[in-house]
Structure formats: structure tokens, C-alpha cells
């Protein structure tokens, strides 16, 4: 599968230029455990229709629409796009806020908006809405292996011609509760907060980057950021 476009949102900024700058500065150490600021995900135009969205969704939407824009594909291709989102931990910040609601207001006083956004596939729903995509959409979660699994499915969908182009990405947050849990219990699972999306195609002529996704079975625990780093070499 070839990368026709890429979008990145992370604590150091948004887009390939910011990411390349961070790579040159040794980005993993610099950005491990750092949060994506409000300023980075404030984009009224790109996030139109997402006023209620939580930061998890906003990061995913921005990375996905940036990947599409980067690909140069025409607007007519949006409707048939496939979208697969991979996440290790899901929108847990929102889930904990919802638990907070239950404890503060009781079972009958909780926010339906919070609940709706605690459902893992809310982010993909916003991406589809933003782009007007009516193609196949999926959200997967497999802790460290989520992104690899998403790539497997993307490859099979392209081969089956379920769609001709597919947005595949990852998004994760690191809220206070999860940071506490993972630092104590499973430091190997601590994600880098942010989102990376690739627009993938089987058309070699559309290839824009140094990384080609092949031999997926041999590569385990791929993550969006390490793939983005390879793609920009």
C-alpha cells in the first residue's frame, strides 16, 4: 500500500513540517508524556460541525482531513473513502469524565453528550461527517498492536475493492488517570498523545513518501508516529 497523503497532530504541532523539526530535535524524548495543547487543535474551519467533540476526536479529525488534503485527491473521491481508526486506549479522558458525572450527579443526572463521545467510534463518525465519506468505516483497539491490525484490514479492503482509497490512522490521549495507571502498571503501553493518519492507495503513481506498507505480517507493533518518521526520511 502506498502513502498518498499524511496528517500529523502531536504536542509539537501539526503537519509534516512541525514533525520533521521535532524529529531533528530527537522528538520521542521531547514529546513523550506531553499533551497536545488547545492551540494546536483550534481550527474552526477544519473542525466545523465538531463543537461538542472532545480532544481525542479533534486530533483525529485534523490528522485525517490533513492527510486527505495532502494527497491532492479530488473532492469527488471523498464519498467513497474508507476510514479505519486504531487506538490503544480510546477516549478514556471522556470516559473518566462520564464516571465523574455518575458519581457527582447519580445515574439519572449524567451528560448524554459525554456518553456519546466515550464510544470509541465517535471520532470516525466525525471524520466521515467532515469529509462526507459514505464508504466503509471501522475503529479497532488492540493496545500496542492496533495500528498493525488496522493496516491488515486496510490491505484486505483495498484488495477486495471495498474502496479505492482509505484513511488509516491512530489516535491516543494521555489523561491524568491513565498516566497514573500506566506509569505504575504498564509503562510499555504509555502512548504518545496525538494522531497520525495516512491516505493509502494501491496506485503506485500516487506514492508520495519513503515508506511503503508491505510485508505486514513480518512487522509487529507498528505505530503511527514511527511510521510517519520513516515516511519522512
Amino acid at each position, binding site marked *: 500500500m502506498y502513502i498518498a497523503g499524511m496528517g500529523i497532530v502531536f504536542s509539537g504541532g501539526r503537519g509534516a513540517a512541525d514533525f520533521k523539526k521535532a524529529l531533528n530535535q530527537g522528538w520521542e524524548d521531547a514529546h513523550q508524556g506531553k499533551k497536545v495543547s488547545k492551540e494546536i487543535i483550534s481550527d474552526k474551519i477544519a473542525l466545523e460541525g465538531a463543537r461538542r467533540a472532545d480532544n481525542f476526536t479533534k486530533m483525529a479529525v485534523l490528522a485525517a482531513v490533513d492527510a486527505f488534503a495532502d494527497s491532492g485527491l479530488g473532492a469527488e473521491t471523498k464519498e467513497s473513502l474508507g476510514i479505519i481508526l486504531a487506538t490503544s486506549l480510546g477516549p478514556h479522558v471522556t*470516559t473518566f469524565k462520564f464516571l465523574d458525572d455518575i458519581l457527582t450527579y447519580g*445515574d439519572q443526572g449524567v451528560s448524554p453528550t459525554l456518553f*456519546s463521545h466515550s464510544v470509541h467510534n465517535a471520532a470516525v463518525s466525525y471524520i466521515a461527517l467532515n469529509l462526507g465519506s459514505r464508504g466503509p468505516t471501522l475503529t479497532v483497539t488492540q493496545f500496542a498492536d492496533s495500528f498493525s491490525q488496522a493496516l491488515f484490514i486496510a490491505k484486505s479492503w483495498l484488495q477486495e475493492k471495498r474502496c479505492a482509497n482509505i484513511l488509516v490512522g491512530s489516535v491516543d490521549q494521555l489523561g491524568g488517570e491513565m498516566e497514573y*495507571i500506566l506509569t505504575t502498571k*504498564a509503562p510499555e503501553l504509555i502512548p504518545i498523545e496525538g494522531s497520525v493518519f495516512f491516505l493509502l492507495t494501491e496506485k503506485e503513481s500516487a506514492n508520495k513518501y519513503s515508506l511503503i506498507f508491505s510485508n505486514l505480517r513480518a512487522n509487529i507493533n507498528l505505530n503511527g508516529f514511527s511510521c510517519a518518521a520513516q515516511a519522512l526520511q
Partner: protein
Amino acid sequence: MPPVNIAITGLGAICACGNNIKDTLRSFSYGSRNAGKVSLFESELNCPVFQIKDFTPLEPFAMRTLNLAFQAAQEAILEAGFNNGFGNLRVGVCLGTTVASQLNDIDFYRIYREKGSAPLDSIDRFLKGNLAASVAKLLKIQTRLCCTIVNACSSGTDAIGVGLSWLRNNYCDLVIAGGADELNRVPLDGFTALGIVSQSLCVPFDRNRCGLNLGEGSGIVILEQEKMARKRGKMPKLFLKGYGLAADAYHLTAPRPDGSGLEQALKQALKEANILPKDVAFVNAHGTATKDNDLVEGKVLARVFGQKIKFLSTKGFTGHTLGAAGGLEAVFTCLGLRENCVPASIGFENMDEEIGIAPVNQKTEISGNYAISTSLAFGGNNSALVISRN
């Protein structure tokens, strides 16, 4: 790609109707609706839920959802003839869920918010509990193909669809696919806050419907290439012929009013199966009993299949089991073809003129070799499976 016949060689189910398929079919024939106030956890809410009673988890320290999936998987594996293991076969595990993917342990959070730290024993169950990976581990399956689908209410259907893709692309020889979900305070409170939970037993597609009842369970199918099944002496009777998946791109919680997403998913599935709408013997509909879902879905079924289509919702028997729904309903669709009949769409009494068609309201014989299971998810995902019999 050359066409490959994918057989369904094993079925497993656990839900409020019964802890296995035999008991579930018995509940269907008696019209038993085993619902009541939730007792699995404390709740101020009195709405009926379809909770599984008399369930002894095989792994006491694991999440309930994992145990439900494990139980259903074992039943399916036994039927498929793999009780002694899978030998050298390449096995994939693809399961859908909503609850098991969330860290929603309220007791942990209650202490944490007060003290800034909390005991982490229950967190272990989450961290070790990724559904597909954990089921694979319990079944002693070493595999790279292991995926947990979190597509809200269509997760189970989509997990089966992904399994179909894996097999068609020869990523593996066999797939354990379906879904599982346990009753949990988060969705119970959340759906209630959305105003779509009924305070009485749900009545899918009925004129007086006023919301869903939540339920729990697991539905699992074993998928393998027909030629592989025959090679090991099995003569498959059921096949997975098609899968369709399409997004509404409309709203976070409401379905697209014109139903075009569901229509697209159905047409894709029919095209893959190489059949026409008239070839479909019955549809196991999503039928949650909410005003919106049943209206949209009912009208689409009428439009695509005509006024005479036989259809039903089994959610009157099981409740809405979220991530498990697609898995359970695929199993029930298989059972309908196998038993040559479908149960009543329990709870239904009065046709909604706005929908214009009515589900079957008694046990109904079916004729024809194809059936469909549909799912419509929060976030606007629409999925359909075509299942056939010999």
C-alpha cells in the same frame, strides 16, 4: 480475486435466553422474556434489562465480557470439531465489543478522584483484557491476526465481516469471529440520558415503541474456507456469502433519515453474495425499538425487499447487547436457516403505519436459502451480512 466459499462450521451463543444455543432456542419457542432490574451492579435506574442469570465464569478473575466470549467460543469450537486444538491451522480471532474496551471501573475512579491514587487490582483485568487477544490466549492460539473491533452497535457484525476479508485474502485458515458485551453502568446511564431506554419491555417495530432495553451476551461463529472444512471431514451447511458496510456521515447519535447508508450496505452485501432481494428468505433486523432506528430500518427493508419480506428483531428476547448484538444475530440468522423457521418478533403487536411493514408475530417457517442480518450503529455505521444454507 477468485471466489472462495466461506463456510460457517460452528455456532456459539450466550444471552438472557440461555447459556447455550439449545436453551436459547427453547426460550424462543416458549416466548420467554427474561428481563428485570439490573442486579450486577448498583443502579438508581429501574428499567428492565436482559441480564444473564446462573452464569459461572470459567475465568473468575477476568472481565465478565471475556468470560461470555470464552463460553460462546467454546460452544462454537466444539461444534466445528476443534475440541482437541487447531493443529497447524492458521487461526485469526476477530471480536467486537464496547464495554470491554473501556476503562470504566467506577470503584477505581471513586477512590482515585478522592485520593489521587487507588488500588489497581481491577485495572489488571482491563490491561490484560483486550477481548480478542485474551480469547486467543485462553484458547491457546498463537496468532498475529487478533483484532478487537469497537464500532459500537455493529461491532459484532463488522468483526465477522473482517473475518470474511481475512479468509478471502488467505491471511489465515480459520477465524473465530463475533462479539461480546456485559451489562455495565456506563451504557445503561448513557442510553438513559439520551432518552432512548424504555421503562417497560421493548417492542421493536411496534407503533407504541418507546426505546430499547439493554442486554448482555456473546455470539460467535467459526469461519473457514469450505474446501478446508471438507478436507477435515466436515460437510458445511451454512455459508457466509456477503458483507456490506457503509457510513451515514450524518450525526453522532441519530441515523440518516433516508436510510441510504443501510441501503448501500445491503446492496453491497447482496452484490457480493450474487443474489437479488427476492432471494432473501428473511431478515434478522437490528430493530432496537427506538423511534428512529425502527422507522429508518423498517422503511429501508420495505424499499429494498418489498412489502412481503419476512423480518424480525430478536432484541425482544435478548435486549440490545451492543457489541455482542451482531455476533448473536448472525448466530440467530444461521439458526433460522438451519431450523427452517424463525421465532416471533417478540413484543410486536401493532403495525406502525409510518413504517408500513410489520415483522413476523409468530413462529414462522421460511423457504429460500438466503438470509440477512443487519446492524446500525451509533456514529452512523451500517452493516449487513448475507448467510446461506445448502
